[in-house]
């Protein structure tokens, strides 16, 4: 039977997944239509204005649902993760507030000008509004990813036993954490890819239907450049992300690779079939029919083909790196976590009794063991292992699709340069069928990011079962189904409206 934690996680996952159906298109399409409008302003050709307007119409249909679900996500931190909100609210609340003040207002203000300002403001002011809408959306992505990155790699804070919470020590460390930078670049580039795939896919449909070929070819030209640049750059950001995960969340990397026993000279599994029954420390094979790229994982993680990469068993049982660094076993960490928690209890009792000496002593024990605080909540060390099959497959889906998009955009870009695009029906079909793939790739990436860090709500500090609100499972179950029903209806409506608007096509004034 599902517990409160399960339903709370499901509700959050559903809202986040649903939100992520709309946001990438908002960010990706914003860039493409801003480029198109810029061409219009530069050349004065009404064709480009009308082309931009068509994509803006689709942008508008998509935009509102993204905004609406974003509201729910923000409030769900409080409604469903009350303990979490208190325990780290001192740090975590700031990026959300800044997102509102700096980004959302920009987006909200200029999106209204963009839609309704065509005859009310000057050409230049309108162009600025279009760019600012996209910039607002992108800045908003920055701050929400700062918040997400902080959960994965908590920095810039210190635990305060008097207030029983983590408190911010350095805003710069939080706002510009390397994890945030990596997440932002990788995520925004993935949005540009999705926007570009959407545009070439829809344009491909027009070409298949032999409609609006000038519009379709021109749209592909712009989108292919954006998609090409973005997909090449994701190789770099993907690589940085992997290194970041290796450094900060080795368990996630091991799960993604289905790697139980690590070591040096580790290859990367290109593809294979994961054994769902495999448990840590048993003798079963973890991956069947694996296709391995020798040395690749070591090189990807450490920039050295002989580099050491720990596996799930190593992390659970503790290990020593070739450089001689000893990493504690899960049980040792759990022990230290309990010591930290006991020290906090002792500190609070001593504080009640105004026993300064005991307070000092407890505080120093607490500080020493604080990095393992969250392990005190873990009862069984295997709870520290995330869902391996899910991460393994989701990661491969993301990477393989990412590779496919690079190829797609290289072909589209070259064909477009040589003006050979119009006749390639097969390519139009591939472009059209790629639209759902871009969504799948983005979702798969988030599945790795979020399920790969389980059981942690905040890495090493608080597992999800200590983060949840004091609710009955049935409460969350009911809201889950209410929102599921609402989201399903809205998604169907949205898709129908989108398809109708595409079928109607652009309207040209000249």
């Amino acid at each position: 039977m599902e517990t409160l934690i399960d339903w709370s996680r499901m509700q959050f996952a559903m809202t986040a997944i649903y939100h992520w159906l709309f946001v990438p298109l908002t960010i990706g399409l914003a860039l493409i239509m801003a480029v198109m409008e810029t061409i219009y302003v530069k050349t004065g050709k009404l064709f480009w204005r009308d082309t931009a307007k068509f994509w803006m119409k689709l942008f508008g249909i998509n935009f509102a649902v993204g905004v609406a679900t974003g509201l729910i996500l923000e409030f769900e931190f409080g409604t469903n993760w009350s303990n979490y909100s208190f325990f780290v609210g001192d740090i975590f609340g700031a990026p959300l507030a800044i997102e509102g003040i700096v980004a959302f207002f920009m987006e909200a203000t200029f999106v209204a000008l963009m839609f309704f300002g065509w005859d009310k403001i000057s050409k230049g002011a309108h162009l600025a509004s279009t760019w600012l809408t996209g910039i607002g959306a992108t800045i908003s992505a920055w701050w929400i990813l700062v918040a997400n990155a902080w959960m994965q790699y908590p920095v810039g804070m210190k635990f305060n036993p008097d207030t029983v919470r983590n408190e911010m020590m350095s805003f710069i460390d939080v706002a510009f954490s390397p994890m945030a930078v990596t997440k932002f670049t990788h995520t925004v580039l993935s949005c540009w890819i999705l926007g570009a795939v959407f545009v070439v896919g829809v344009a491909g449909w027009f070409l298949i239907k032999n409609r609006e070929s000038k519009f379709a070819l021109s749209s592909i030209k712009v989108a292919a450049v954006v998609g090409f640049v973005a997909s090449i750059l994701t190789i770099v950001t993907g690589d940085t992300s992997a290194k970041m995960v290796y450094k900060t969340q080795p368990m996630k990397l091991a799960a993604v690779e289905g790697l139980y026993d690590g070591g040096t000279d580790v290859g990367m599994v290109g593809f294979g079939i994961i054994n769902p029954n495999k448990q840590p420390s048993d003798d079963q094979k973890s991956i069947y029919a694996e296709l391995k790229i020798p040395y690749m994982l070591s090189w990807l993680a450490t920039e050295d083909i002989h580099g050491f990469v720990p596996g799930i068993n190593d992390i659970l049982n503790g290990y020593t790196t070739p450089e001689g660094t000893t990493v504690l076993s899960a049980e040792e960490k759990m022990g230290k976590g309990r010591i930290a928690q006991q020290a906090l209890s002792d500190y609070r009792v001593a504080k009640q009794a105004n026993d300064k000496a005991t307070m000092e002593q407890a505080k120093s024990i607490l500080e020493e063991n604080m990095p393992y605080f969250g392990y005190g909540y873990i009862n069984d060390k295997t709870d520290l292992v995330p869902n391996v099959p899910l991460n393994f497959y989701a990661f491969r889906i993301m990477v393989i699709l990412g590779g496919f998009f690079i190829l797609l955009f290289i072909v589209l870009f070259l064909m477009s340069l040589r003006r050979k695009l119009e006749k390639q029906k097969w390519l139009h079909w591939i472009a059209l069928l790629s639209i759902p793939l871009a969504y799948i790739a983005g979702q798969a990436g988030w599945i790795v990011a979020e399920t790969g860090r389980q059981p942690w709500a905040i890495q090493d500090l608080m597992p999800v079962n200590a983060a949840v609100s004091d609710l009955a499972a049935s409460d969350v179950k009911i809201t889950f189904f209410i929102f599921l029903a609402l989201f399903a209806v809205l998604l169907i409506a949205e898709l129908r409206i989108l398809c109708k608007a595409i079928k109607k096509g652009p309207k040209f004034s000249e």
Partner: protein
Amino acid sequence: MDYTFFQNYWWFLVSLLGGLLVFLLFVQGGNALIMFLGKSDTERTMMVNSTGRKWEFTFTTLVTFGGAFFASFPLFYSTSFGGAYWLWMLILFTFVLQAVSYEFRNKAGNLLGKNTYHIFLTINGLLGPLLLGAAVATFFTGSGFHIAKENVVNLANPIISSWDSAWHGLEELIGCCGQPASNWWNYVLGLAVMFLAQILGLLYYINNIDNEEFIKKCRKALKIETVLFLIFFLTFLVRTLLATGYAVDTQTLDTQTHEPTIYTLPYKYLHNFLEMPTVTVIFLVGVLAVLAGILLTIFKKGFKKGIWFSGIGTVLTVLGLLLCVGYNNTAYYPSTSDMQSSLTLANSCSSLFTLKVMSAVSLLIPFVLLYIFFAWRALDKKKITSQEMEGDGAKY
């Protein structure tokens, strides 16, 4: 500038955002009247397009209000949102209904038909302000909850904020299940906010829509709405002034929590108004401006600027009320079942460092308000007409 200064500063900002949010609920108030006031399709289209060019401001202010509260008073965020779960979830649900309805209502293939989206807008228009008002009323009436920070290391049950009622917020609306009758007062403020939102919606239509026949109907409706608003608003105000409030004694530490003791004090909110003349002036000027906007619109022929008087008045009134419930050693989120668990500015706020960082960020707010002002003016320069709605340009 010490810790107290920054706590007060952030309470001021949160209160100001609350005031701006209630002002911007004119979007909801206007939408609540779509089915009742808009008799023809053109009228409804004018109404939806009028509020539709502003809905994102309301939405964004709601999000920012939540974010700012989270950043500055995280214990409130974790206690109220996790505790009064259903109340907040209902609010969110109605706002989601609203957000999509503008864009979807008039589009081919919208699945549910135009009327359903009008119903969605109406539901949000009525329930949004009502529930937000009820949520704010609990600042005065209290809720049943316990806070035990030590529990974070209680491995069997690591719950910091626990809510008494298994109804999780519904008890704030339904005065049953052994809950104190004071919950009924939540409705009174809820209804006052709902009618105020409709007044503001009408005033905005009068300002924004250029259609004599329709405006005539708005002016007529305004009179009824004003009477209803005044009944509920004044009832709540009198109740508040006479009510026993929750005060903080900073001199005496509670034996259990070692924090300043919270105790009940008769006429606490009345005392607050008397002891803080600036807050009283803000509040009174606000109420007068709300009334001035309404009365000028009703009695002065051709007067269309009522929304600005009443809008600014609303911001000030709400600001005054929230300052009254937060300042002057008052527990702004009282617990009716465990008084020492009540939230005060000092016991629920972020660390000094975070408040300082956020204060630096808050310096951007005037800049944000400035560009909103210019964008708003640019969009509203041309009023909405039936011709525009029947024309070819961008519209919902």
